[in-house]
């Protein structure tokens, strides 16, 4: 019996941790708060720029907004050094799962400390077929730290990983370290159950939400059923603030919900994430993380009119910034329409009401219809309206 082991990145870092909470860290259920600093602006250009992009009439252009989704066959759990020395339980529904162990920073006497990297040689895996040292039991593929830092700079720092050998099957395993890590050290164990049929999916009905909206995320577990009461969900801002989401059984699976009444400031373009933890009735855990845009409603479209080759739009600007209008023009051919062009116009606007006239061109305007109008905030990177 062999373990297929993969030494991912073996960047050494010394441990000095002495005191920390030793309990397993659950997904947060309590809102965390801290002062939110004023976000910067991605684009402060004031000049007006316009552009016309002709479209292929045969192109299948989808109008409206499309929701976001993610599918996960993985989970992770944070454990203490003490737990890892005693043996941590892992559950897989498929064979050849990929396991990663990564040290988690902890605060020791006011100083952020990263515990020692645990390498495959320090790990022992016990399954139904026996007890094996991860490194010595076989090495089908091996890469040292230099190889991987050259291959993926800045990605797999401090991480060690291995693949459970096919011959060990699936089910329950115990992962243990023989290394003398401190009891209070903390590690994150990722399990990527690649060959499993059990996957957790999350989806929203739109990609972006404004402050004061309600964010609703649907969760489904394919290949298994949710264990009653096993789900937890939270919303995490780009700067680390965490907010618990309420959970209820929906028409299809579970719905996680939260009213966006918190400060939704964020650096331009950075996305929030919904983290949902679940477990199947058979005890297979899953974690899925879905990125969503949550932004402030900095401007809106009051009205618009497209006639005689001119697109006239009135916008209400709450926050000064650079805003873009996108007009999606289609050719009207009897009852049928086909894509014609996208008309772009952007400029800096101060707070207040502004009317913008965008000439489409009389020559090209005959038989042209405006199918979609969008307002985008280029300073903070937010799609504010699609109508």
């Amino acid at each position: 019996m062999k373990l297929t082991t993969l030494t991912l990145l073996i960047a050494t870092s010394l441990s000095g941790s002495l005191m920390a909470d030793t309990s397993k860290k659950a997904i947060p259920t309590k809102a965390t708060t801290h002062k939110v600093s004023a976000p910067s602006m991605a684009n402060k250009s004031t000049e007006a720029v316009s552009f016309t992009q002709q479209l292929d009439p045969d192109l299948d252009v989808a109008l409206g907004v499309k929701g976001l989704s993610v599918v996960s066959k993985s989970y992770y759990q944070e454990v203490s050094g003490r737990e890892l020395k005693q043996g941590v339980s892992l559950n897989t529904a498929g064979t050849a799962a990929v396991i990663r162990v990564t040290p988690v920073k902890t605060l020791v006497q006011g100083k952020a400390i990263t515990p020692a990297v645990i390498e495959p040689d320090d790990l022992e895996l016990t399954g139904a077929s026996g007890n094996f040292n991860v490194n010595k039991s076989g090495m089908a593929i091996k890469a040292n730290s230099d190889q991987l830092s050259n291959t993926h700079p800045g990605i797999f720092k401090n991480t060690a990983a291995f693949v459970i050998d096919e011959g060990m099957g699936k089910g329950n395993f115990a992962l243990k370290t023989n290394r003398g890590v401190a009891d209070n050290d903390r590690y994150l164990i990722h399990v990527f159950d690649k060959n499993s049929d059990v996957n957790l999916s999350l989806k929203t009905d739109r990609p972006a939400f404004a402050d004061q909206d309600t964010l609703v995320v649907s969760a489904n577990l394919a290949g298994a059923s949710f264990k009653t009461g096993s789900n937890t969900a939270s919303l995490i801002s780009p700067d680390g603030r965490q907010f618990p989401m309420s959970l209820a059984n929906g028409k299809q699976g579970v719905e996680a919900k939260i009213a966006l009444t918190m400060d939704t400031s964020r650096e331009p373009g950075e996305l929030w994430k919904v983290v949902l933890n679940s477990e199947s009735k058979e005890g297979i855990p899953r974690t899925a993380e879905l990125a969503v845009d949550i932004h402030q409603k900095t401007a809106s479209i009051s009205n618009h009119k497209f006639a005689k080759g001119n697109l006239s739009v009135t916008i209400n600007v709450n926050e000064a910034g650079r805003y873009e209008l996108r007009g999606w023009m289609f050719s009207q051919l009897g009852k049928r329409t086909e894509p014609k062009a996208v008309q772009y116009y952007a400029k800096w606007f101060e707070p207040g009401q502004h009317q913008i006239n965008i000439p489409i061109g009389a020559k090209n305007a005959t038989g042209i219809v405006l199918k979609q109008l969008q307002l985008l905030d280029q300073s903070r990177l937010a799609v504010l309206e699609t109508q």
Partner: protein
Amino acid sequence: MRRTLSLAALLCALSWGVVSANTGVALVHGTGQQSDAYNDYWKSGFVESVRQGLSNSSNLLVVNCNFEKYMWDDAAAGCLAGQLHNFITSKNIDDLVVITHSNGGNVMRWILSNPTWDSRYPTIINNIRWVNAVAASSKGTPLADAVMQGNVFEQSLGWLLGYKSDAVRQQQVSWMEYYNGSWLLGTSGRPALPTGFWNIVGTDVESAIWDSDSYCGGYLENVGLETTQNWLNSCSDGFLNCSSQNGAGTLWFNDTDRTRGDEPLSHNQSRRQCFNLDVILRNDLYGASR
């Protein structure tokens, strides 16, 4: 087919003397902060081989920017736009072929998708013949997901699992899904990009110790990429699934359809002088510049 027709039309026009294009080529690196991409990211052998496709060999630009940042950042798209705009205007380039690698494709796509972001963008867009996107991370990579899962920023500690650059965060699969649907063009259901965006897709990694092809681009790097294929689909180049590499724009070719010996291009080999990739890209320039 469409690419062949476009090229044929261009060649036809050239032969009649209707068009006298001043062709240039720009090489756009992937994730990372480059100050000497010619030597560090691409290597001189690759660049000089591609350069041979130009009738005016000085019409070459090797871009150096900070692609550790988000694609829209001034240090990323702003820097790229500055270098491309200066290249186009100072050398009167009106037929620019852009060759991108990996995340460089996303930064280039940002410029093509957001023409009003910056007054330099329309000039750039209007002078590009097409983009050859080699191993583009158009739909992100599960590797970025894997390293960001559980990695949360805490005020007192910073990133719990260590800092990951903006570019790594951006290339998470669900982040790219958002950007593709809201800010970027060229994916299914979205308007096409205003210029061609032709994908070269790396489909596998080979690192057999006895196979000399495994040594092109660096044996150890290929071993590393084969390792990280564990997080990816069977069709992948060690960093990106094929579906991401062909997620925006149009397929030009899968590596094994055109490379010497039908060899696959790992994510590292697709920016090196491996299996005639440089010659394929050179000929792509040559055809239109003569």
